[in-house]
């Protein structure tokens, strides 16, 4: 459903060439949750944005449902539901107005959009505040509206960027439930996070990203066998140490 092939992104920053993502390749199938894990600045969000077509790759390409992001950008966007940690809401609109607005952006028929909104309101518990101005909602309520927004057009692919950042236990549980529901619905999901413990609970396969490159990739069992370690955190730290050793040697 999703494939990234040699995805590379270079930025020019303050006159310097910064390699943010370095030849990243992976695949995500339907009904699978893929965790793109790494420390802050590892290149997770940049990779996600290239898949979504918001950023143009310097090299390589990504495909969603057979559509290349750089060629059929709109076809790709139509198939993706995107949840970002920094996503906000329109303060002066109600959640219902916002969801219907986004349904319209994704070309959902008005009647179908109404049905989708009511269904999502049930799933995410939005009914009580569906017609309240968004500015008056709590952080958790806003997060739930955002999750509903990403699904209002019933996309086959869902991309989540740091979905639990800033959320309490209850808020995080909503995310876990959401991911489980998406998997159950057969959607291909990518979760970007630096919370490795949470990733273990949510994801089926993992890509451990460091400085723009994938250090390890596979399911938890495969990684355990390959590294001889039991948790993602240990695997990540071991990979980091190995990488640090290699770098001075290479230098």
């Amino acid at each position, binding site marked *: *459903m999703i494939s990234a092939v040699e995805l*590379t992104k270079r*930025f*020019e*920053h303050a006159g310097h060439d910064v390699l943010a993502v370095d030849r990243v390749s992976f695949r995500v199938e*339907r*009904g699978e949750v893929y965790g793109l894990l790494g420390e802050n600045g590892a290149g997770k969000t940049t990779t996600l*944005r290239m898949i*979504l077509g*918001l*950023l*143009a*790759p*310097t*090299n*390589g*390409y990504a495909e969603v*449902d057979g559509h*290349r992001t*750089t*060629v059929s*950008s*709109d*076809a790709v*966007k*139509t*198939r*993706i539901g*995107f949840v*970002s940690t*920094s*996503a*906000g*809401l*329109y*303060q*002066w*609109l109600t959640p219902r*107005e916002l969801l219907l*607005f*986004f349904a*319209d*952006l*994704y*070309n959902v*028929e008005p009647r179908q959009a109404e049905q989708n909104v009511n269904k999502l309101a049930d*799933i995410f518990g939005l009914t009580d505040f569906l017609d309240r101005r968004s500015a008056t909602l709590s952080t958790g309520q806003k997060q739930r509206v955002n999750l509903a*927004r990403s*699904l209002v*057009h*019933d*996309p*086959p692919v869902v991309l989540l960027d740091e979905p639990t950042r800033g959320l309490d236990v209850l808020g995080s549980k909503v995310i876990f439930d959401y991911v489980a*529901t*998406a998997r*159950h*619905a*057969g*959607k*291909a999901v990518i979760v970007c996070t630096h919370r490795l413990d949470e990733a273990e609970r949510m994801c089926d396969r993992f890509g451990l990203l460091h400085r723009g490159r994938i250090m390890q990739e596979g399911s938890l069992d495969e990684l355990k066998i390959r590294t001889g370690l039991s948790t993602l955190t240990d695997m990540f730290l071991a990979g980091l140490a190995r990488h640090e050793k290699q770098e001075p040697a290479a230098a």
Partner: protein
Amino acid sequence: MSQATTNTPPPAGFSIARVLRLARKELRETLRDRRTIITLVLMPLLVYPVLGLAFHQFLLSSFQQTSEMFFHLGFEKQMSQDEQTKFLNHVQNGERRLRAQNPALGASGSGGGPILGADLGASEPSFEKIRYDSYPDLEQLVLTQRIDLGIRPIYLPNNRYAPRDARLMYQLIYRSGTPISRQAASYIERRLQAANEVDFQERLSKNGVDNTPEASWRLKPVAEEKGHSFWLGTLVPLVLILMTVTGAVYPAIDLTAGERERGTLESLMAAPVPRLALLIAKYIAVVTVAMLTAVVNLTAMTAVIALFGLGPMLFGDRGLAPQAIFAVLILLVLFAAFFSALLLLITSFARSFKEAQAYVIPLMVVALAPGFMSVMPGWELDEYVSAMPLANMVLLARDVLEGDAPLLWGSVAVLSTILYGAAALALAARVFGSDAILYGSEGSWGDLFRRPRQLKAQPAISDALAGLAIITPLYIVISGLLAQLRMTTIVAQLLAAAAATAFLFIVAPVMLVRLQNVQPRLGFQLHHVSPLALAAAIVLGCTLWPLAYDLIILCQKVGIATFSSETLAQHRPLLQERVAQFRAAPPWLVLFAIALAPAIGEELFFRGYLLGALRGRLPAWAAICLTGAAFGLFHASVGGLIAVERILSSTLLGLVLGWVCWKSGSVYPGMALHVHHNALMISLIYFGPHVQDWGWDVEGQQYLPLPLLVVATFAAAVAIYIMAHLGTPVAAPIATSQQPVGTPPA
């Protein structure tokens, strides 16, 4: 949630209905925000009454001070001492009567002249405080404000107005644009009228028959008055424009930088909607709010002017006419459309509300400068200012309010404002929501002007619009400068014209193409063509002129013309002098400067660059019509006047040239056509006397002989047939700028 499926709705793409729905959402959000309501409704409700009160107080205090001042009257030099004394006696008698009626002299007088100050209850200077002297050339003195009022005697013949002895009529010469001059005229007029009433009553009681007034007069505004003096009325358009702008600022920031700051922009960009559709929706919302602001401001201002009785003081005798209010509203809407585009361009760069404010404040300051300069004395809407953003609108609004807006420069102001707005919007489309702005990693103002790394086959539409927005004001200013060269030799004028054409339509577009990293051969459509296409174009060039010429004559005969036969007759000596000058110049130079250089330059710019940018992006008819219209408008001005008939014939020529370029895929046939067309037109004038020998009275504005027209039409039809059946040219490749660097082939 349903099972994952690829049967997702297709992307919506760009549609007007969708854009309007998007705009409705933006408007709904904006209008719910109380900050918008504050600038939209509360600001005008507060500002105008305060301004009205301040104006009122200012005027009152000025007139109170005026009562301590002298009116300075000037008698015509030839007016005898006795006549002057007689006039002053009339005024003094009138003064006595008025004072008898009203000791305070506060109420408005009974005369119908421009009454200033009296409406506000201000007292007027007493008769003893009038200064007077004799002068020659009263108009000039009034015009230069050295005297407030000129009095010229007019000796009437013995007719029913003067049945008694030798009688004088006084011509009161005043300057309508100067308040003190208007007030002096009003002062004298009312006293003469009061004197007449006294005299009439006395005579009526004696004879009961003669109703001839003792003193008769006629007001005469200075006819040759040029330039506007500074007066508070000139500030009104500026205040309106600035207030309208204020209404657009908040929504523009909120819908661009504000959206990014709130984190909603990324979700919006992730949706399958063209960026241009999102931007246009936001633009519609901003313009709508700005227009609402304009309407509220205009209504509040009109109400305040009416309530405080400021109309005559600010706008003279006419007061604030309804049609002027409507015209100003149109101008405000136009300006709102332009400034909203500019604001969106500026705020699209910003990554936060604060950053957007930091960009907008200097813009406002920069905008204030031409605005304030334009209300200063001596600033007129002319070839230099008509293309200057903001200043042109302020001056045009002022002229509209004063009822003397110039057609040509007013049209240039309107068109240039529309063009700047379109260019700003096109540039904003390049910036809005781009990854650089969205993520702030590599974006800067330099990006807007940075040469793209990838070589392009054709300019982007936004590039072409920016090019047009740069070349249009340059064209207007350079045309104005060329007109100043009339005093030099004809050779110098022709060389300057050729150089200007080359700079505007060849050098500048080449520089643009380099800056935009467009492959010159493809960007200007410099493709080889078959000799047959060239031959057909040459035939068209040789046969179109009789049709174009007769079209102009037909326009003039049926009345679709700017120049009346009187105007033409009036300008005929000048035209003949001009033609004589041309005939004195070497024919090769005339042909080079007026036929060859414009033909090559204009084809390179209008058909090569502009039409090339539209090829493949717009349907052929739309692209040809747009460039044809632009070509026609560039040819609108003839000697500082708009010639409608010239726009029509030039637009038609532009359409033919556009079609030829579109069919052949190259600018060369158009160049051949254009050169021959120009050369023949110029030759007809240059060799006018010889042409007249053939029975073609070109200078006499007569139709050409019918056989010539038949032959020309037939030949043109054959050439068009050949051109139409040349086969579809290889379509110019679409620009590859949308493709990211390093994208592998799909």
